[in-house]
């Protein structure tokens, strides 16, 4: 049977998305790179501003910018602690749901998933109230520890992110668990493996692709932290305008210094791509062994 080449149909299917992708994905990336290579100069103090080519000058300023790098360090610290805690909890809950030890599975699945419907801004507002000593229902906690202080506010935000995303990640891992064929378990039972042994040596290795996927999404999300710290600036003076990399981009663009802000954006996007790509490569190599 010969295959017709429906060129017109292919164009019809691909073009609408393709054009929008070029206009609102590729063009902004290109434009940000271009802007980051320019700088604004003035003749004298009050002369008219002109945009001239500055080479890598903005990037030099990015690399010399102490607050930006401490904000990167802060979100990395956040990620190193929060991502394993969140995914560990998600994995534990998924394994428990799948273990047959729990009654009322449908209820728990729904209950854990509810926070995911709440956008980051609104979740952060809610928890900001819950952390405030004079409004919180948990006064025993908020009177002992000031959760909005400079030492603890990062972990207070980690809790907000964890609260929102555990159920979602649990659902991804749980659906991967459901896809494991029954024969695999029968083989494990014949070999005399108990439930914990089965979970550790059979289930977890088989759902590894799902765990890798959720980890990549979590790494991207962590580097992009914005809504939670932006909201927490209302509740805590410890959250500065350069607390996370994206807050730095935002505050630099409202100075306004668009060229420098563009350079921040480019560096941040590159760092995100490299980090998630590196993680994928490392875990793939581990799986090939």
């Amino acid at each position: 049977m010969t295959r017709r080449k429906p060129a017109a149909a292919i164009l019809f299917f691909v073009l609408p998305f393709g054009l929008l992708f070029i206009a609102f994905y590729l063009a902004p990336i290109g434009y940000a790179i271009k802007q980051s290579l320019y700088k604004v100069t003035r003749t004298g103090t009050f002369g008219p501003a002109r945009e001239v080519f500055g080479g890598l000058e903005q990037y030099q300023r990015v690399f010399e910018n102490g607050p930006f790098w401490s904000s990167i360090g802060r979100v990395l610290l956040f990620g190193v602690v929060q991502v394993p805690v969140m995914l560990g909890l998600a994995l534990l809950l998924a394994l428990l749901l799948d273990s047959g030890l729990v009654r009322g599975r449908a209820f728990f699945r729904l209950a854990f998933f509810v926070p995911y419907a709440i956008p980051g801004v609104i979740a952060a507002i809610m928890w900001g109230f819950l952390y405030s000593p004079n409004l919180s229902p948990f006064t025993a906690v908020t009177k002992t520890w000031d959760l909005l202080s400079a030492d603890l506010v990062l972990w207070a935000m980690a809790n907000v992110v964890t609260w929102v995303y555990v159920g979602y990640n649990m659902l991804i891992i749980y659906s991967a668990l459901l896809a494991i064929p029954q024969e695999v378990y029968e083989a494990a039972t014949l070999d005399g493996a108990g439930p914990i042994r089965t979970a550790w040596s059979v289930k977890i290795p088989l759902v590894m692709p799902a765990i890798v996927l959720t980890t990549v999404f979590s790494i991207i999300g962590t580097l992009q932290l914005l809504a939670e710290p932006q909201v927490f600036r209302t509740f805590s003076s410890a959250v500065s305008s350069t607390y996370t990399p994206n807050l730095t981009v935002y505050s630099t663009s409202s100075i306004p210094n668009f060229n420098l802000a563009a350079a921040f954006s480019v560096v941040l996007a590159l760092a995100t791509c490299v980090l998630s790509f590196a993680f994928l490569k490392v875990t793939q190599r581990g799986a090939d062994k």
Partner: protein
Amino acid sequence: MKSKSAAMAIMGICTLYFLVPIWWLVVGATKSRSDFGNTAPLWFADVSLGQNLGELFRYRDGVFLRWMLNSVLYTGGAALLGTILAAMCGYALAKYRFPGREAIFNVVLGGVLVPATALALPLFLIFSQLNATNTFWSVFLPSLVNPFGVYLARIYATASVPEELLEAARLDGSGEVRTFFTVSTKLMFPALVTIFLFHFVAVWNNFLLPLIMLGNERLFPVTLGLYTWNSQVNQLPELRMLVLTGALVSIVPLVVAFLLLQRFWRSGLGSGAVK
């Protein structure tokens, strides 16, 4: 027996962790301003939810309802249209061989790794060149693009639309486009719901784009609106109850929709993650 009770205890504690904050919000939104500070936070006092709602909907000429409507248009509208566009593109990538197919797919896949927030600032710069910032379109149009949707659509189209069926439709004289809309979309429907949900959440959670793009509060989505109210609470304490009530009103439809559509998350995520 022992492990069963331990498992149930863990599930119980986690249920409290996930649901108590929402319970607190529901209770808090029913209280008057003075009761909110002075009564037990986790139980009802005199119910003045009606008053709070009335105040919320009347405040500044009903700007809150305007925000809700904007959010429906930005997120629902962009996710609906964006899902159709992503489905068409992913379907073509799965079902036709044409030059540049793999190149297009790889570029789009690279787009998945570029975080949406990294695009917000350059988008602002481009729109300001065109004098188009602070408009509905400046948030709506960029929100239509969802590379992850194309990726998922390609996987689902490969898995759920058999070649034989397309050949049969061709023999019946049905055009390619008509076949897509009448036959293929039906087969892909559960997957399309999943793509829609992913897209919806991505737009709903994208805070930087409207924050950077919009100055006119009548164009705000509800997230940005509540954020601005919340940042004025120190000067205008009466806004606190409006923020709480508004937060509750804005999440109720979403929670209901998410719970009803939950099976689509599971089926879709399962095939997406295992692929």
